[in-house]
């Protein structure tokens, strides 16, 4: 049925779901959004959209939204509704009280990739200039922090080398640990279009995802590798490139550090990475590894797209380096149709990464330990800044358990639901003296907060998002902030209440400050974006309207050359055993988004009302599990219950689930292991056992009986 409401106004803005960054015309009637129309001029989507951006916007008027600030003295008390001035003063005093009692470094902040660049930048300024420490992190910590680390190490910048449209020049597309048709649907459609035109497709994924086989799409090579073996398999692909002389020597000699190539070639070229060795280890056919290597190296244009299936591992950063190494070795960087491209989960993960919401770098990935960089910020902000890196998000929780971390400002995050090893996080939250949560909803984390500041959705504020293709898009206020303030205004109030004078008359002035202090954003302003629509960084004097393809002439490293990192495969400590013989891995589906804070509050739940555990028939039958039955999922970290779903998408030995619903509590089960370089959690590999629920309770009863018998004996 056609929408009967004729809109009386419209504003062009950017979707806040995945990292594609689609442009939408938000149409309103009497101040309420009635339709989201995909915008034809949107440079990422060209008038296309997915089911989330198009339909899942009603969360902003959900009756569950909290519209007044709430405070309480302890987390056991009920919330008390108060006015903004009282809430801000209470919040400011609370953080200062903790600092006075436990020291300057006992508090910190975390920002969200659902917030704008301006808000993210301001939150890190709040931590550094107002709290006086570098305990600032953002949710990219738990998704793409290895991207920043691994790509910075090899090609210089932790960002996609291409624009999305570049895929239309690709002859070979390699998708690693990503499922674009579900997770990044508009880009997924573009990929399908190129495949229909004849491009070859290689997919590395433990699961037979929709990107392996679905209408208009079938992978030429699918490597259904065992979770946790990415680095081994990617090194093995490189082994074939080296041993069969498929590498681009001219490119490497002209554009890369040849001596580091030689070191790398010696490592991956060694017999230990031969497909015949790695194939059996990863559960794949060695010939398929060879086929993938030859296809990729043969190009002529080969492009890599990857996701959290690469990063969320104990060797996540190493996996990203493997991709950088491989692309450099095959000369697949610096022109259209090639490249290494992270697919970002949230609308502004790239912006979160760029804008200094990290404990070790300012905006532009520049180290806090660098005196010259720090001096430029000190001059602009008028305060002395801490020269030492702060705590990362997982370390903040660890430090809460030892009593060294006592207070936190959480902007637009739900660590209790989204961070791994939930029991550990809950205990850490309980130990904190003072927690400020700034969000749309009373999420799981709110149970442990002392102040709730009601935020604004992306429909209610001005600013910019940086998409996965480095595109800085305008976010425009479509409706008035329901709780009274845009999120950046709330941070400004908090800064002033804590004694740091901050004044911005609009979000554009924050972007001006970002441009002043971050070389890649130098040329960006609201005026430019209003004129050209959007621009990809680097945007500066030599590229006044931005840059589509990176690394065309040199790499952003001191000598201008790309380099190779040694990427030894180190198996994760998370192993299967007799008790936990299966490997659990996780993913997303088209209609829902992350932990579902937004999409669960829209009619999109019709298509996905619960998370299910995909299990092979073989593993299910061995456990007496019937299709659709409730099962208990247990790891050494915790347990939860889900409904089983027989699936041919997973091989025996692997089970899979989405994590869109809070009631599934998947993160009670996930492991506390993390990436060696960034502490990005290893969500993608957890050893588990699956049992029928009745059987599970029988086991527990049997155990109790046994214990009783022992006591009596």
């Amino acid at each position, binding site marked *: 049925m056609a929408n009967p409401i004729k809109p009386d106004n419209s504003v062009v803005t950017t979707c806040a779901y995945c990292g594609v960054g689609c442009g939408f015309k938000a149409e309103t009637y009497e101040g309420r959004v009635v339709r989201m129309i995909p915008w034809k001029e949107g440079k990422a989507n060209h008038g296309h959209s997915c089911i989330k951006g198009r339909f899942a916007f009603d969360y902003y008027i959900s009756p569950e939204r909290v519209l007044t600030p709430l405070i309480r003295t302890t987390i056991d008390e009920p919330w008390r509704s108060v006015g903004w001035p009282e809430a801000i003063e209470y919040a400011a005093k609370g953080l200062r009280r903790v600092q006075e009692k436990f020291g300057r470094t006992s508090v910190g902040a975390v920002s969200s990739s659902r917030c704008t660049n301006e808000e993210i930048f301001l939150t890190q300024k709040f931590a550094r200039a107002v709290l006086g420490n570098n305990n600032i992190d953002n949710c990219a910590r738990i998704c793409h922090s290895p991207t920043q680390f691994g790509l910075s*190490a090899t090609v210089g910048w932790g960002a996609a080398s291409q624009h999305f449209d570049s895929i239309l020049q690709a002859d070979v597309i390699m998708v690693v640990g990503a499922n674009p048709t579900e997770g990044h649907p508009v880009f997924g459609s573009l990929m399908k279009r190129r495949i229909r035109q004849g491009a070859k497709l290689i997919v590395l994924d433990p699961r037979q995802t929709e990107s392996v086989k679905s209408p208009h799409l079938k992978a030429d090579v699918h490597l259904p590798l065992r979770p946790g073996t990415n680095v081994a398999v990617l090194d093995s692909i490189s082994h074939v490139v080296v041993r069969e002389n498929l590498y681009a020597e001219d490119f490497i000699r002209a554009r890369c550090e040849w001596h580091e190539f030689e070191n790398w070639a010696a490592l991956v070229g060694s017999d230990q990475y031969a497909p015949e060795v790695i194939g059996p280890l990863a559960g794949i056919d060695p010939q398929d590894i060879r086929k993938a290597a030859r296809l990729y190296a043969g190009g002529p244009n080969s492009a890599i797209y990857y996701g959290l299936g690469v990063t969320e591992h104990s060797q996540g950063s190493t996996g990203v380096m493997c991709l950088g190494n491989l692309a450099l070795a095959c000369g697949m960087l610096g022109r259209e149709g090639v490249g290494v491209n992270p697919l970002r989960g949230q609308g502004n993960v790239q912006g979160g990464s760029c804008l200094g919401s990290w404990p070790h770098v300012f905006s532009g990935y520049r*180290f806090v*330990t660098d005196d010259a960089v720090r001096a430029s910020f000190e001059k602009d902000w008028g305060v002395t800044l801490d020269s*030492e890196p702060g705590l990362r998000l997982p370390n903040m929780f660890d430090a809460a358990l030892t009593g060294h971390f006592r207070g936190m400002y959480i902007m637009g995050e739900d660590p209790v639901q989204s961070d791994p090893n939930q029991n550990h996080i809950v205990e850490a939250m309980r130990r904190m003296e003072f927690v400020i949560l700034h969000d749309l909803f009373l999420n799981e984390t709110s149970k442990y907060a002392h102040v709730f500041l009601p935020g604004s959705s992306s429909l209610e504020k001005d600013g910019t998002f940086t998409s996965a293709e480095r595109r800085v898009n305008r976010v425009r206020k479509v409706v008035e902030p329901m709780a009274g303030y845009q999120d950046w205004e709330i941070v400004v109030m908090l800064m002033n209440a804590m004694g740091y004078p901050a004044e911005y008359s609009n979000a554009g002035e924050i972007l001006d400050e970002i441009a002043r202090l971050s070389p890649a954003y130098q040329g960006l302003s609201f005026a430019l974006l209003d004129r050209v629509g959007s621009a990809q960084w680097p945007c500066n004097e030599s590229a006044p309207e931005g840059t589509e393809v990176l690394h065309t002439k040199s790499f952003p490293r001191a000598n201008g050359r790309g380099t190779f990192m040694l990427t030894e495969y180190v198996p994760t400590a998370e192993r299967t055993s007799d008790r936990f013989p299966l490997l659990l891995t996780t993913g997303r589906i088209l209609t829902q988004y992350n932990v579902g804070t937004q999409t669960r509050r829209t009619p999109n739940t019709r298509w996905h009302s619960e998370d299910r555990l995909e299990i092979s028939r073989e593993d299910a039958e061995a456990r007496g599990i019937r299709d659709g039955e409730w099962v208990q999922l247990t790891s050494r970290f915790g347990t939860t219950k889900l409904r089983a779903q027989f699936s041919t998408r997973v091989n025996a030995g692997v089970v899979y689930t989405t994590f869109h619903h809070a009631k599934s509590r998947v993160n009670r089960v996930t492991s506390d292991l993390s990436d060696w370089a960034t502490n990005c959690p290893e969500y993608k590999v957890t050893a588990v056992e699956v049992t029928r629920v009745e059987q599970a309770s029988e086991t527990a009863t049997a155990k109790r009986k046994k214990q009783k018998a022992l006591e009596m004996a």
Partner: protein
Amino acid sequence: MSTGSPDHDDKTVLGMDRLITMANQIGDFFAPYPPERRAEGIRNHLRTYWDPRMRADLLDYIAAGGDGLKPFVVEGALLLKSGADPTGYYGPPQDAETRRIAGAAGLTRRGHNPA
């Protein structure tokens, strides 16, 4: 500014087991590099990414015997005491020889242009 912290339950900022695991994982990554570069890689990583209290806890633990830490992790961590350039860098760990080969004028530890 003071980092004074009067009232802590535990002496170390993170549980020591966690710190040891993290340090050894870093060591595992740099293990394939020749000894001098391996140690420098570990030093650079700890210096650039770890909160100073975590570094201090690790050094204290090493002073007390360093049980459970891989020997070359200890070697890299001890370089922190040398006061070498605290400014971090991305990319392969460097020694004098690789810096010479890399050859660019002004290729400092940084090895990186800001974004």
